């Protein structure tokens, strides 16, 4: 049992076995009385209107994807902010600070492009 991967093997096996066992237990012993109301689409309790597969304005997509882009930016800034102090202690503070400024500067240029191109204009 020296091999460290044995633990991993156990973990995987348990995950597979338990998921199969529980799903099937509830299928075998659970009661199932389907009716039209139950099988309908669940939409916060309100009766669904129309088909979900309609055309949606590309504006939603633009806002969503730009949100994700700048959200990721924040994800990159957090670890930088946390570890900046240790870099300063090692005398690398200026370098690491400027690096982040370059990164943010490029994102700023991208944001400027998005704004000027009118990707965030709703009308």
């Amino acid at each position: 049992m020296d091999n460290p991967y044995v633990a991993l093997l156990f973990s995987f096996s348990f995950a597979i076995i338990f998921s199969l066992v529980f799903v099937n237990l509830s299928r075998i012993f659970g009661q199932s009385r389907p009716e039209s109301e139950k099988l309908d689409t669940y939409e916060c309790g309100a009766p669904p209107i129309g088909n979900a597969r309609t055309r949606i304005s590309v504006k939603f997509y633009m806002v969503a994807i730009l949100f994700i882009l700048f959200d990721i930016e924040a994800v990159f800034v957090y670890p930088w902010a946390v570890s900046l102090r240790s870099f300063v202690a090692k005398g690398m503070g200026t370098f690491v600070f400027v690096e982040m400024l370059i990164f943010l500067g490029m994102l700023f240029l991208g944001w400027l492009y998005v704004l000027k191109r009118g990707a965030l204009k709703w009308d």
Partner: protein
Amino acid sequence: MANEAVFTLEPGALSSLAPMSIVLATAFLVLLWDVIAKPRDRGILLGFSIAGLALAAIVSLILWSHADPVSHTIFSGRLAIDRFSLFFNLVFSVVATLVLMISRDYLIREQIDVGEYYALIMFSVFGMMLLAAAADLLMLFIGVEAMSIPVYVLVAFNRSRIRCIEGALKYFILGAFATAFLLYGIALLYGQTGTTSLADIHTFLEGSSGSHVLVPVGIALMIVGFGFKIGSVPFHMWTPDAYEGAATPVTAIMATGVKAAAFAAIIRAFLAFSPSLVMFRVVLWVIVALTVVVGNIAAIRQLNLKRMLAYSSIAHSGYMLAALLAIEPIWGPQTSNAMSSLLYYLLAYLFMNIGAFGVIVVVGSRENEAVDVRDWAGLGFKYPWLGAAMALFMLSLGGLPPTAGFFAKFYLFSAVVHAGYTPLIILAVLMSAASFFYYLRVVVYMYMQPSEGACTPTVSPLAAVAIGVSALATLWLGIAPSALFPFLEWAQRSVAVLL
């Protein structure tokens, strides 16, 4: 050493980044200039881009002549700014300049002359430069992505054409898969060796007894990822559709710049993996044989010129991959010869390919893209210069002396023969003889068919210069491969730093 977060900023590190920084800055400038100043004539953006590329090329040339004869890395071994990467910087600058020059008419004709096109080309050139300089698997991955993502967008650029969308979708989805393979390979190699630095991986592999299971798996997955990027069989399925669908100038940059960058990364990576490459000899042999055979045989059936050139580029990938078989576990003159002949091949290949695509661009019009070879009937008499240029590019792609294609094939094949792969090279030579059928078909249609072709070429001065330069370079590399302009010596000295 990899666990410690120690970064050093070597003296001169930032100035050696200059070519990349210039290209990136130009890309941003072009992007913002277009949306802020809203120039009515996008010619100024073209001028900016070409000026940026020219500056990057000049700086690369200066850095090249001052570079140490040994490889030196910056940012704690992440990037290698050596003669090898500077050589490729120069190659990419030339490729992008020529492609931009043939793009202009096409963009205006198709009414897609927007500023983003120029910016995307520049962004992808930045990615190529990063890829050629990557001395670390993670930088390599970032380079692949920085190069590929703009190209995915560029393939879909002509969105009013349905073929364009189809090709882009196929390229994007398969490209994403290939990237995943590459990343998975990198992860496994890191898992086994504990480092992502190519130099450290080389040291590890030299010292290892060969019992590390994850190393071959990692290398195999990376071969899949790279094989996709260069379009080698059996990872070539996307190539004809993406090449046919994309705007012709974009096809030109995919067939030359992207491929050259991928080969630069492959050379660096394979030299690092060389102690473990012995077990991949058979795999590589089979990939080369399949690529050469399938590429050439499939091209014979194509009457569509872009599809024909797509299959021809697959075949050329096969020839170039053969050079990798000559890498020895311990690098010697044989490795050096093979690698420098590979660089020479890339150089020759890019001129004749961009030239061919350039002629296709100017022969086509809005109504008729003139990609069907039957539309070219009699073109050689109506437009003698255009016909002569196209004939030259076709002969060079086939490998007839005295063109660049012949010497490229000659050097490369003899390097591989010296490594002891004579049967494979016999196959490659036979296949390249077969390739004359489809290359010469274009010439036959241009000169030996009654003039009933429906195409109406319009040659602008810009495109004429680009095609002329390509034609001259194709001849020059063929007639005087070393005397007038020491391309081969450049290649040799550029490779020398790696070994």
